């Protein structure tokens, strides 16, 4: 149906779609988690905040799980190298995620205030740590990470956890945290009323302006960071072999794609436009539309990182020739094709029934609603 090169490109796009889907869906849950201790000051207020995402967080988290599964299936070498290399960062994400299912389900089952406030902080950690670490991970990918392959393609990572926390990567972590904070704030403002909605809107303004600054700062900083460049001839349709090419670090390489295909500038422009629109729409009280604008902002920010690095996925700083790219990290054509069809069939269904679930649960979550359903609500 498709040749190997096309399939590799399709999967670059599809992994992007899954990551953006994760940011839009699970991201707003996480943003709400970050806001929980401030947006809700009393127990009932906190229950209002939690119940805006209560019926949906579990379905949304599957974007993350499926994204992971898709990377495993489509880019096994990335899955292997990134997860084992970023060992403690991944475990920190995992341990933070532990708090979410139990936090949501267990918190309101017992009335003791200490019990509830413990889980509230758990939900805060579960919403705060993963976005921060994902941003930090992207920040490190943009700088290259120290790993190499031996002749049997076993990966060896030579960095440390603490080295991941360098200033540029932390700035990227800030970008990722602020974008999801803004996104979650808009969702919360949309689903609540009165004082909680007002606090959520205030958070949107702070996060939105912070995001515009941080994203710009990261872009400027990136001009000072060496990108990576393939210096040998590459056959995109060839069998994947990450050791078959030569790679060099080169200043400005992360901007080469924008020079070669000027229309790709639309991607960072989308990030800015989405963010500004989302801010204006929130101010105008049109939180539903603001959520959509903010979704485009997320697509723009994530897309900017992806387009800047293309075709690189995971450059190696210690042995650039071992870098992983779209062309040499992919699965076999058969696996890519089967996964493509599976995604094509199931993704529309997922969007359809997720949409239905939100429709069923639509409307503002109010304090009266919580008090009326205190035995069944989260």
């Amino acid at each position, binding site marked *: 149906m498709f040749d190997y090169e096309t399939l590799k490109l399709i999967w670059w796009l599809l992994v992007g779609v899954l990551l953006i889907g994760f940011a839009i869906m699970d991201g707003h849950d996480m943003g709400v988690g970050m806001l929980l201790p401030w947006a809700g000051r009393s127990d009932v207020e906190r229950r209002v905040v939690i119940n805006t995402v209560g019926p949906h967080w579990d379905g949304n988290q599957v974007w993350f799980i499926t994204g992971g599964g898709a990377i495993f299936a489509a880019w096994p070498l990335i899955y292997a190298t990134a997860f084992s290399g970023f060992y403690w960062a991944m475990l920190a994400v995992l341990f933070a*995620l532990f708090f979410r299912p139990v936090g949501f389900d267990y918190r309101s089952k017992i009335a003791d205030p200490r019990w509830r406030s413990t889980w509230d902080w758990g939900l805060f950690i579960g919403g705060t740590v993963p976005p921060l670490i994902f941003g930090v991970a992207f920040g490190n990918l943009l700088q290259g990470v120290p790993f190499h392959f031996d002749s049997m393609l076993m990966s060896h990572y030579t960095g440390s956890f603490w080295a991941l926390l360098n200033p540029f990567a932390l700035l990227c972590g800030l970008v990722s945290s602020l974008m999801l904070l803004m996104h979650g704030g808009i969702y919360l403002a949309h689903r609540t009323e009165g004082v909680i909605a007002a606090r959520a809107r205030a958070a949107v303004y702070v996060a939105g302006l912070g995001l515009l600054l941080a994203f710009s700062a990261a872009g400027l900083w990136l001009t000072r960071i060496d990108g990576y460049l393939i210096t040998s001839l590459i056959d995109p349709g060839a069998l994947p072999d990450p050791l078959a090419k030569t790679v060099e670090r080169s200043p400005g390489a992360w901007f080469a794609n924008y020079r070669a295909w000027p229309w790709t500038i639309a991607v960072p422009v989308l990030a800015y436009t989405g963010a500004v629109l989302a801010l204006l729409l929130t101010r105008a009280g049109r939180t539903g539309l603001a959520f959509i604008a903010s979704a485009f902002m997320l697509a723009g920010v994530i897309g900017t990182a992806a387009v800047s690095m293309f075709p690189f996925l995971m450059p190696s700083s210690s042995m650039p020739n071992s870098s992983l790219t779209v062309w040499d990290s992919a*699965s076999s054509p*058969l696996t890519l094709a089967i996964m493509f069809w599976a995604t094509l069939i199931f993704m529309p269904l997922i969007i359809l029934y997720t949409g239905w679930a939100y429709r069923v649960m639509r409307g503002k979550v109010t304090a009266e609603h919580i008090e009326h359903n205190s035995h069944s609500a989260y």
Partner: protein
Amino acid sequence: MISEQLVDLSRLQFAITAMYHFLFVPLTLGMVWLLVIMEAVYVMTGKVVYKDMTRFWGKLFGINFALGVTTGITLEFQFGTNWAYYSHYVGDIFGAPLAIEGLMAFFLESTFIGLFFFGWDRLSKPQHLLVTILMAVGTNLSALWILIANGWMQNPVGAEFNFETMRMELTDFWAVVFNPDAQAKFVHTVSAGYVTGAMFVLSISAWYLLKGRDVEFAKRSFRIAAAFGLASVCSVIVLGDESGYTVGEAQQTKMAALEAMWETEPAPAPFNLIAWPNEAEQKNDWAVQIPWVMGLIGTRSVSKQIPGILEIKEKNRHRILSGIVAVKSLERLRANREDTEALALFERHKADLGFGLLLRKYTTDVGAATPEMIQQAVDSTIPRVAPMFWAFRAMVGIGFWMLALFAFAAWQTVRGQCAHRRWLLHAALWSLPLPWIACELGWFVAEYGRQPWTIYGVLPTHLSVSTLSVGNLYGSLVGFIGFYTLLLVVEMYLMVRFARLGPGSLGTGRYQFEAAH
């Protein structure tokens, strides 16, 4: 060389986290259908007690489900974090079912579980029942894809090694999906889940009946659990036997070990009901045998032989010797892709590549392996017999005990006597932990029995790990054990608390102990 300690710790961590995960999965798999049954009765009869049953048992289901979700992500993560070479080497095949599980099943169950809990007032009765059914279907499909992935580890069909990409690649997707090992495992595993769900409801209902509280609620729950449990336990035993019959080589090795069959017996082989396996002398010190039975179970015939451990080892010795040639020629090919002589040699011995790789545990230069190393590798191809033998027998014993229990429970329910048979209620109550023990033993037999491989005959466990330091492993083990202990304490506390509160915890005003909440 990969340190043996790293491999052992990685295995320990996976074993702990996987077995812990499976404390929650079987209950989810089974209870979700009990919820469907209860709610269907509610929709058909309109009796509100069935709605309350769905909601109360649903509450306990939710407490359990939360930890199932929490601990499931750990397993997905660990393939990347701790089994990096495995992920690279077989991700082309193994990753696909995991991703499809997410797309086809996990989205379904996770989206509809939200509506199951929060949609009662917003959906019509049939709509809500549909939501519950979709949640059940999603849960069970999820198990299907995971077991397809696991079945492929036991019997790696539909894939081939590619020396240029240095990994296994998919050649036939439908062979992977319809892998007989996977299908047998799926039906056996979900049935075991159904038994677990039934036992859970049966035991707690028995406790209410013993205490004489919420009797009508408890009797109805007991009845549904008894009927569902009886059907499920029959299926678990019949289908478990079916999974013994599948013909894969991994299964032969496992069967020889778990039946402690050292020598190949003339067909039809006798069954060792009880024996005392002696690893050092490679024989049983004593055994109580039933003639013919093993041959009938294992081959469904009176004439086919079942290979014993010693015969399997001899066959494996030849494969290791041939595998050495495969590894050597692969190394030459990796250095020079144009080496046609090496390619021809490799093609001839490729099927035994995995067996050659077994020697990597003892030496980096497989070609220079000493006879002692080869002997060690040969011995390592059979898992230790005694743990397999006893784990299997304990699992089967529990299965038959539960068959008797559910049969009596169903019979007494049909006669309308279940609330008055106190011995039966006590037996039901005290049998509560048994299905979990049986499930864990079953997984032990399946996974320990596949050693020394992660992918049988293809990839040794030893080579599958990530190149991490041992210190990392100690750190993460401490983290997992700490978190998981805490979570288990919290979960058990809530479970016991809500089971004690009973249906009164719904706050409907129809049940006892409402004030206690």
